[in-house]
């Protein structure tokens, strides 16, 4: 799993059946300092996250299937948590 910032929302009327009724969020992976790192991705929201939230993103098909309680399909990237706070090297951080 990676920590990412939700930077937007994606609206798509025509999409694969596995994505029906799924909220699509644009997520940008970030460093612990909050700086963008790596390529942004489109993720299915499973925790009612929104733009500006710091979230936990899983990028694996089995994770997606488990979280969404359905057989393995076309979904691979899922937002699985909203980060409240984290600690590294004795230093506490907030989102």
């Amino acid at each position: 799993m990676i920590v990412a910032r939700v930077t937007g929302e994606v609206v798509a009327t025509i999409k694969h059946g596995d994505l029906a009724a799924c909220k699509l969020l644009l997520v940008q992976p970030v460093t612990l300092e909050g700086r963008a790192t790596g390529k942004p991705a489109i993720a299915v929201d499973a925790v009612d996250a929104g733009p500006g939230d710091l979230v936990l993103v899983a990028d694996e098909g089995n994770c997606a299937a488990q979280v969404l309680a359905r057989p393995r399909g076309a979904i691979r990237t899922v937002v699985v948590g909203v980060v409240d706070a984290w600690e590294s090297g004795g230093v506490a951080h907030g989102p």
Partner: protein
Amino acid sequence: MHFARVIGTVVCTEKVSAFRAHRLLLIEPVDARAEHPGKPLVAIDLVSAGPGQHVFYVRGREAANALPDPDNPADAAIVGIVDSAREQPLDGPGAAAAPPAPGEPPGRRTPGPMRGRRTP
């Protein structure tokens, strides 16, 4: 899933049987604004996308799962056509966590005007 723009079609008369009746499109990965194209790739089209359209695609095993019969060798599949993508660039620490406008619940923003990216 990632954004891409359709830049062409690929025709193969001879192809594995699992790909029969599926269209192959040439796409280039782009960002949410359909800018900064990357290295082109070929993807199975599952949404009847056309050249110039802003789409999103999935890579890896999930691309094969997206086809009606998951027993196939696809490694990229177009799974949606983008109507609009609202992006708030992340400039630095906390930049995307700007306080919402008064009267707006925190962390949620009302949808803005649709910015259609579809080029018929």
